[in-house]
């Protein structure tokens, strides 16, 4: 059965603004770098990913905040968008990398919810080698896309 666009978009809104993607104030989903090659899949587990260590950075890299999950519709293709992070500052973050991070390669990101439960993964188009401290990795347009063609 095909839903109406109104219903489909409401489903996306409901999903994006409900736990675990949006938690009560004070519980902040985190985005961490993945430093080993991987293939995004619905069935990935946290244990199958190698994340950058806390010690690799001077401050823990995270961008999303509970109040910052936003949703809307892509004007080009009608996809329902769930956008993580709501401010310019949150959409860019600098890895103040320590020496231990140098030599690692970032292949993508992992979204971790409450209790560090893996919620999703994103693979960069190109791996990013960490070669120095304070390296900027741009995470603009980070979130989920729900194409209207996914429902029938």
């Amino acid at each position, binding site marked *: *059965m*095909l839903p109406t666009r109104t219903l489909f978009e*409401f*489903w996306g809104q409901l999903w994006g603004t409900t736990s675990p993607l949006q938690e009560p104030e004070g519980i902040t989903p985190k985005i961490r770098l993945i430093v080993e090659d991987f293939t995004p899949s*619905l069935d*990935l587990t946290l244990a199958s990913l190698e994340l950058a260590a806390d010690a690799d950075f001077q401050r823990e890299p995270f961008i999303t905040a509970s109040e910052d999950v936003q949703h809307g519709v892509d004007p080009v293709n009608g996809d329902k968008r769930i956008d993580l992070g709501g401010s310019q500052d949150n959409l860019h973050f600098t890895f103040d990398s320590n020496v231990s991070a140098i030599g690692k390669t970032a292949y993508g990101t992992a979204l971790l919810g409450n209790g560090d439960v893996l919620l*999703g993964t994103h693979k960069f188009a190109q791996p990013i080698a960490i070669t120095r401290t304070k390296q900027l990795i741009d995470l603009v347009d*980070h979130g989920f896309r729900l*194409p*209207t063609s996914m429902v029938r």
Partner: protein
Amino acid sequence: MKPTRTLAQTLASLAAADTANLANVSANKIALIGANFTPSLDRVLADLTLLSGNGLDPIALTAGAQNEGTDPTTGEAVIDLKEPAGGLRWETSGGLAVEKQIHGYALINNAGTVLLGMQRVDPPISLTVDNQVHVAPELTFKLDLNMIT
């Protein structure tokens, strides 16, 4: 971003339990669509010709949260609408004088003012006399969770 299956599946479970729409306390209804149409996300109730009378009135589903699970063959998340006791069964009656055709099913709210979804019957089914029976197949929404990026 590719969600985990656990997260993705919550899309269906939340939709199935959403009291504003599918799980409304006032049971939604299935109406028969009596004229040709093309299913579209942008279809509205006024676009459709719904059948009524002669035993063809909309039938109320079971109110509350709808069933939800995973298709074991395709892996799709499935929301299957809860049929009422007696099923989604229509039987022509009352002296059907003019041929009526079933072109599809419309999921509408209880008041019959909001279209929530639609499904086509192809080829259409002609009803020409009394005592003809039509039973709807299982009506579901299927969500391909693999398409979330």
